[in-house]
């Protein structure tokens, strides 16, 4: 009976129902969209790191520690045979890491110099640009952020100074052959990339490398000797830790969005219910009990939430689909600030996000429908009949 009356009330009050449903729908949309963007941003950071840096995993020289540049000069050796086979099969890319200093435009700047095989296709980097200019002494690939910091452009030359394996400082001229537009600031800021063979020659470390990144799908090699296998989970642990550290922030943002939604829905529901004081009085006069009045208005709120979910699926669902497919353009490049944020941010609308939002918004609607209707149903029917309702 209540369901029938509630449905009739909602369908009868076309504009009022539409506005209430629309407010709830906007709340659904905003929460899912913004949280989806946020999730997408974090997932993108992880994916960019995997695509451009990690691939399927890595084998490290036992002394290598990417966060300690002081060990770079000792963390290199020839590859164990099995890893070498992987490299020869083009299923892995070797990288030699060393400290260096560059002198762009007369300034000194410490950098990490990485030698990489130009024809590799294991990580998503434009390393092939390094072999296009064979007449250049030291072809150098840098990132956009690095180019901005050093004011270097393609074709600009600058001095590179390094310490070779004999402990001798040496210097030569490098030329920027390409400026890569990467979202992974870890490949960009403070980095220069040169061909592996050139790096090995400069450092007098023939056939020696620091680490190897292998292709996605490759199985872990056993019996590596002293070399250490690092899987993707290990290599992205800093990002995972950053995401984990960011969770409270994410939860606060979700709570703020939910609170804003709750306030919007509460306003709409309170206005709607208190405007219907006379109707409530009439229903009481016709013999509806107080609990049924409360039940009716709460049920209306529930149906409102269901309709809002459906409405969110249809027109806003198209927006969700479109943004998930095409992304949302960001107004500026955040990579120079050390944020791995895509220029075209792809939101991720996970099932758990949609389900959690739906359940929470549903409960909010139920609560904000229940509270005012309970209060109004406590009134004397004679006052309700006169429309004497107040919050």
């Amino acid at each position, binding site marked *: 009976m209540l369901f029938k009356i509630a449905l009739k*009330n909602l369908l*009868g009050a076309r504009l009022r129902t539409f506005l209430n449903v629309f407010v709830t729908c906007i709340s659904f949309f905003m929460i899912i969209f913004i949280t989806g963007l946020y999730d997408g941003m974090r997932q993108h950071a992880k994916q960019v790191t995997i695509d451009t840096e990690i691939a399927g995993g890595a084998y490290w020289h036992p002394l290598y520690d990417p966060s300690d540049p002081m060990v770079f000069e000792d963390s290199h050796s020839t590859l164990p045979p099995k890893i070498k086979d992987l490299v020869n099969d083009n299923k892995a890319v070797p990288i030699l890491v060393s400290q260096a200093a560059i002198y762009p435009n007369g300034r000194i700047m410490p950098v990490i110099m990485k030698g990489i095989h130009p024809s590799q296709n294991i990580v998503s980097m434009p390393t092939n640009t390094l072999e296009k200019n064979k007449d250049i002494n030291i072809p150098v690939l840098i990132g956009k952020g690095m180019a901005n910091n050093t004011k270097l452009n393609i074709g600009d030359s600058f001095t590179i100074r390094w310490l070779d394996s004999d402990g001798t400082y040496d210097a030569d001229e490098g030329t920027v052959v390409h400026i890569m537009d990467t979202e992974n600031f870890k490949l960009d800021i403070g980095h220069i990339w040169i061909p592996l063979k050139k790096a090995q020659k400069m450092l007098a470390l023939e056939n020696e490398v620091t680490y190897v990144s292998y292709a996605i799908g490759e199985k872990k090699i056993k019996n590596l000797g002293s070399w250490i296998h690092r899987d993707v989970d290990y290599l992205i642990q800093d990002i995972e830790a950053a995401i984990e550290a960011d969770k409270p922030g994410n939860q606060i943002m979700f709570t703020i969005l939910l609170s804003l939604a709750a306030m919007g829905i509460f306003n709409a529901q309170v206005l709607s219910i208190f405007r219907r004081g006379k109707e409530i*009085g*009439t229903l009481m*006069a016709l*013999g*509806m009990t107080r609990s049924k009045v409360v039940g009716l208005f709460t049920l209306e709120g529930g149906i409102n939430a269901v309709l809002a979910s459906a409405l969110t699926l249809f027109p806003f669902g198209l927006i969700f689909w479109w943004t998930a497919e095409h992304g949302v353009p960001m107004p500026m490049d955040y990579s120079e600030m050390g944020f791995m944020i895509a220029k075209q941010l792809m939101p991720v609308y996970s099932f758990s996000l949609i389900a959690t939002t739906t359940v929470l918004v549903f409960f909010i609607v139920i609560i904000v429908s229940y509270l005012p209707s309970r209060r109004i149903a406590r009134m*004397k029917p004679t006052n309700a009949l006169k429309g004497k309702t107040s919050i």
Partner: protein
Amino acid sequence: MENNTVISIQNLIKRFPVGSEFFTALKDITLDLHKGEFTGLVGPSGSGKTTLLNIIGGLDSPTEGKVRVLNQPLNNTNHNERARLRRKYMGFIFQSYNLLPVYTVFENVELPLILNKMNKEDRIQKVNQAIEWVGLTNKRNSKPNMLSGGECQRTAIARALVHDPVLVMADEPTANLDAENSHNIMKILTKLNKELDTSFVFATHDEKIMGYLKRIIRLEDGNIVDDKKIKKENI
């Protein structure tokens, strides 16, 4: 209490708090109303007629005294029991019609039957009959905002009578209507009173409808100052 007594009131007092004081709206009212009566509670504004009507209808509670409606003591009944009494045995007609604006005439009239959980087939039959009584068959699918004041009140009458109540209470039913519509409404109510043997209690100060009443109880300052039955052959 006689068998055909539908309302029995003894020493009813009703006080309302006004600031720190109490205003006595009804002072020691005692009266009986009988089945099939067409009674008017008549008096100027503030005389207590609407308060008395609300207490009879279980919408308000007495401060002192005993009120029995349809053999049920209202003093001892809770909200739910009073709601049940209204739902099953009473009908209400209000001055401002109190129709649900989003419902059609049919749906407004159908509402008491839905609340009484009547099955759909019976409901349709009863609603159509009630709408026919009040002459609104051609307006059954109209919403209240498409109706005149007279049509709204006729819809309210159909809604008040559709579930065959024993007692119908009407609070200033003609106050918002012009003379012609007032007479039409009263003619309909008089006819239904005769045909259905339903008791009607009006709260009114509209002189136009006095001629239709079979019993006039005059109230002044919360007291009954006159109670007379009028013999009418043909109205």
